[in-house]
């Protein structure tokens, strides 16, 4: 352990960038320059600590030691770069570099309003995310966890329309419930539990806080409640069901936000927090020693309810994703499912499962960021948000959709892409434990199949269908359980009435759309209700489609005003032409573009890099730092010399440590 200012510097870099961004609001190029510069600096600082951390050094900065200020009585404000923290910080700061380029392209491409606020809040989010990564005790992580909720709120509510405001309300209600109420309660409880057996502390220790283990021995019930409080507090951000619904609504945010924050930084901070709690607050051993006694079943490990919840979430979210026509919402449910992979892996407690879960943090990040970037790029270029409008879009955006395919394959856990490696280790872990853990393995495998089921249609429709000839999408367009329609005598048994059959189909189309509408809304507050519950059953041209259109319209109008900084007025004019066709192909079909001309390099570059990263992590994970970090974390938690020692059942793995 060595005192060092580096962890603080990494956090402050983007905090300083916030000030600079706000100060240079009149010059967009300089402003975005600060973002890029801060991202590069932050990544550089984090990277500079990587070799040391891999060698076992812990860089620590403490408020008390450096300034003599005691944050709270008996609690220090500590930033320390340890193995687990590095994993998250490295990931977030690396991806921020490309996201800041992408965000520039995206926000300018759409002529969004309030870009200064956007970039400032974005930098602040990164500052908080790195703060979460480097937090050295529960109170410090709580501070940054709350700050992250706070600074991401402007990003979610960015559009400023009714839908965005409501999504924002939901977002802060959920996140502050998780943070300010539940997580704080858990932190206070840990402080109290440890104070009963010695000095009160909340500082993380690899393998679990010793004083907490003693406290847990004297008061197991309180320790169990505390465990679930902490887990619940973090699970809100990790979108574990039933606390997941903010995530899908938060998709109203601009796509860079959905990408970096709601697929990487924010949601992963939840998963990361769970990792801290399981590995460094309680430790696998203490968790094992605190079995719940469930009436009728007997003793169940403290981790099992969490694992069941995660397994349920990843299955249920995948099934929900099947029926989402809005691409970003489908991705959001996919995120919900993938985050539960991480939670499931961690809660299985076996070293290999934990290794898989930890590696899934970067693996999912790379793949999902690619997917979001692609969705955003499609939105900017063609204003298409709904999958059912994307038939044949592959020829308009070949590179984007190819990258999308790679990302989707990674989500499904195809070999050679990042997602495979992590899932492989998780399955190994489940196999080593055996017993009923096979169920979790089955859930993982099933979810892989479901992943293909909801991503393949996107790829298929983009590349193998054309705008004028494409099949119906039964899962999207038909009501659940099929069309309830009187078929009567019109249908001949000889199959002779093909025309009418297709008509029937299209009837079904509008029927589904109109049905969903009239169900939800009375005549008077028609629009509001739709806004509030944007129905995914909306068909193109229906309310959903046109409200998307309005968003763009208003953003252009206000955008041109606020962009009174001399930036891009001509472009806005050109933009209006774009608006002739929304959501779907233009009247004369998609124009064919080469990969180089399909969009601006500001967006294509990041997409290409991140997609490549996902492949690199899948092919040579051992050379990409993340797997090394994850391995080191697992071996240090279980106090083993190498991963090989940890093979075998969980009890044997825990023996290694003791």
């Amino acid at each position, binding site marked *: 352990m060595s005192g060092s200012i580096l962890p603080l510097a990494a956090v402050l870099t983007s905090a300083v960038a916030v000030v600079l961004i706000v100060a240079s609001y009149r010059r967009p190029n300089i402003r975005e320059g600060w973002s890029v510069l801060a991202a590069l600096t932050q990544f550089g600082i984090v990277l500079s600590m990587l070799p040391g951390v891999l060698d076992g050094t812990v860089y620590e900065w403490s408020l008390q030691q450096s300034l003599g200020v005691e944050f709270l*009585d008996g609690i220090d404000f500590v930033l320390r770069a340890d193995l687990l923290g590095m994993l998250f910080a490295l990931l977030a700061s690396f991806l921020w570099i490309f996201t800041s380029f992408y965000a520039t392209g995206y926000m300018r491409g759409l002529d969004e309003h309030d870009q200064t606020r956007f970039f400032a809040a974005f930098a602040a989010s990164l500052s908080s995310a790195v703060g979460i990564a480097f937090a050295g005790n529960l109170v410090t992580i*709580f501070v940054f966890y709350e700050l992250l909720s706070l600074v991401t709120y402007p990003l979610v509510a960015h559009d400023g329309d009714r839908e965005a405001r409501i999504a924002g309300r939901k977002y802060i209600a959920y996140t502050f419930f998780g943070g300010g109420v539940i997580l704080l309660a858990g932190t206070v409880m840990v402080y109290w539990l440890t104070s009963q057996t010695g000095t009160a502390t909340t500082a993380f220790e690899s393998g679990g806080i010793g004083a907490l283990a003693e406290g847990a021995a004297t008061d197991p019930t309180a320790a169990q409640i505390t465990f679930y409080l902490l887990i619940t507090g973090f699970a809100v951000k990790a979108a574990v069901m039933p606390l997941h619904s903010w995530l899908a609504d938060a998709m109203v945010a601009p796509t860079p936000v959905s990408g970096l924050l709601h697929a990487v930084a924010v949601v992963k901070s939840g998963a990361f927090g769970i990792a801290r709690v399981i590995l460094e607050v309680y430790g696998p051993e203490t968790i094992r020693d605190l079995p719940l006694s469930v009436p009728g079943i007997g003793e169940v490990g403290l981790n099992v309810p969490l694992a069941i919840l995660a397994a349920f979430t990843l299955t249920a979210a995948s099934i929900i994703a099947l029926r989402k026509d809005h691409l970003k919402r489908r991705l959001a449910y996919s995120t919900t499912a993938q985050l539960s992979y991480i939670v499931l892996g961690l809660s299985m407690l076996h070293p290999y499962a934990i290794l898989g879960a930890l590696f899934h943090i970067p693996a999912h990040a790379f793949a999902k960021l690619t997917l979001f970037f692609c969705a955003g790029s499609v939105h900017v270029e063609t204003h298409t948000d709904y999958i059912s409008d994307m038939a044949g879009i592959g020829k308009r955006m070949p590179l984007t959709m190819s990258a999308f395919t790679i990302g989707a394959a990674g989500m499904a856990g195809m070999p050679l892409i990042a997602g495979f490696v992590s899932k492989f280790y998780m399955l190994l872990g489940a196999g080593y434990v055996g017993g009923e853990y096979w169920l979790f393995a089955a859930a993982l495998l099933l979810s892989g199949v479901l992943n293909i089921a909801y991503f393949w249609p996107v790829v298929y429709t983009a590349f193998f269908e054309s705008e004028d000839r494409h099949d119906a999408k039964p899962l999207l367009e038909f009501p659940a359980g099929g069309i309830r329609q009187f078929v009567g005598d019109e249908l001949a048994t000889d199959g002779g009435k093909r025309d009418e059959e297709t008509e029937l189909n299209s009837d079904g189309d509008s029927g589904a759309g109109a049905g969903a509408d009239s169900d939800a809304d009375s005549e008077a507050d028609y629009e509001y209700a739709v806004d509030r519950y944007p129905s995914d059953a909306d068909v193109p041209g229906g309310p959903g489609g046109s409200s998307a259109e309005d968003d763009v319209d208003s953003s252009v109008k206000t955008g041109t005003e606020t962009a009174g900084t001399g930036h891009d007025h001509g472009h806005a004019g050109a933009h209006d032409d774009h608006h002739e066709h929304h959501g779907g192909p233009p009247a004369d079909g998609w124009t064919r573009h080469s990969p180089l001309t399909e969009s601006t390099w500001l967006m294509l570059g990041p997409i290409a890099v991140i997609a490549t990263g996902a492949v690199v992590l899948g092919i040579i994970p051992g050379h990409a730092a993340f797997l090394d970090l994850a391995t080191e974390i697992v071996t240090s938690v279980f106090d083993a010399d190498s991963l090989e020692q940890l093979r075998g059942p969980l009890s044997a793995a825990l023996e290694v440590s003791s």
Partner: protein
Amino acid sequence: MSSVDLLLPLLVAVPMLLSTVPIVLGLRFDRTGWSVAALTTTALVAATTTLASVVYTDGVVTHRLGGWSPAYGIELVLDEFSALIAVLVAVTAAGVLAYTRVGGPRGNTFYSGYLLLTGGLLGISVTGDVFNLFVFLEIVGLATYAMIASGDGPESAVAALKYLILGTVGASMYLIGVGLIFMATGTLNMGVLAEVLPAAVERDPTLVRAGFAFVFVGFSMKVAQWPLHTWQPDAYQHAPDGITPVIAALVSTAYAYAFGRLLYSVFGPEFLTSTPYLTELVVTVGCVSVVAGSALAVIQTDVKRMFAFSSVSQFGLIVAAYGLVTESAFIGATIHLVGHAVIKAGLFAAAGVIAASYDARTVDEYAGLADEHPLVAGMMALLLVSLIGIPPSAGFVGKWYIALGAVEAQLWPVAVVILFSTLLTLAYSARLLEKMYFTPATPLEAPHVSESVATDGGENEDDAETAAGADAANDGDAGTRGGTETAALDATATNRDRNTVSYGMLALVVATALLAISLGFAGGFLAGLLDPSFITEVFN
């Protein structure tokens, strides 16, 4: 420590004596009040900080007025607990003057009242005598009634009258309580009372308990605990903008301090925990106030009124913390007293600035404020964030200790209320934040033309267009809000001429916001002021 104790009577006497000066000078000069008040409060800041530094290095400072023995005479005491409040009073009183220089109520009589109020508040913080405390409660009360009544319009007079009646009832309750305790013990000095009360409880528990009941009800009224809070929203809402920060930050705080002083220095933890149902009652009153105050705050339309109900809820937190009778909870209550005072002073000052420059007083009128007044809106956002208790901020530190106290006392329902108070505070704070930052300044009263238009979701577009139109109008005349139904640009313009925002007003808002944030790092420091010296004395 030689003669530093002589400063104690001066803390009280100087502002009260000098409060006559503005009136006297007013016979000859028009605008002397502010200067006199500024000089006095600056001197008081210097005096209180000097005294506080002595207290925190050398220990308690006491002064016997006229040299009488404490058993008969009045004793002034400044210990670790009261020094904090005395400094808070002096600094806030001096700081708010920066606001009133341009923005506040003017006139010499106002500043006379202001000095009287300051003297009374300092008196509450330094007195060591329960009857003397009543005198200062009345002085503060009278000064406050006058201050509130100095607002424009009949509502101010009504609010002041309401406060006068209820406040006097509260003070009388307290006086009855003091009388009963005097019957039981025969002394009025706090230090002596603390020694003889246990014996008195043995002798006649009913008398002491009845005395406590009256004291508790009296202070519940003064501190504005639900359901005895009804004077407070009116008083805060209708008081002149310049004086609300002082009243909101200091008056209730001083009362709450006095209540804590009586609970812990006079009755003592022993009495609190041994009397059946006493702590339960105090905690319940506090918790109910937390919930009721927040719920009522959420439904308010007027911003100042909303903050007033927020005070009900925040003081509920403090009263509940008093009732927990643990060391952490007491530290938390003290820190929250200070933190809340700073936050509320800033919030009311910000509301005043906004009312003066933007003519917005209701939540709906705050729409689009962030574009017009980025600085004030930003500072208000910081203050609201502190109030919610998002770290690092003053609000968080207080909440941490109070929550810790609740857990230590193992009163789980109370812990739940205290933790959920975050969400309750969030409910009304977020409402304001959302209005300021994410709601465009649209004419609210204007009928939506688009309502007649198709049901195909076309309304959004129209909305956006009107919004954009309003924005464009605003661009023409920055600082004019497109939202007033009068929409009379010239009227607003004259309004602006009349109510200019000075740098002093802005400085106060900025300073409180920064202080609220930096206090978030002072959790250990503030706790160190009380612990161990004061805490061990009280709890052992």
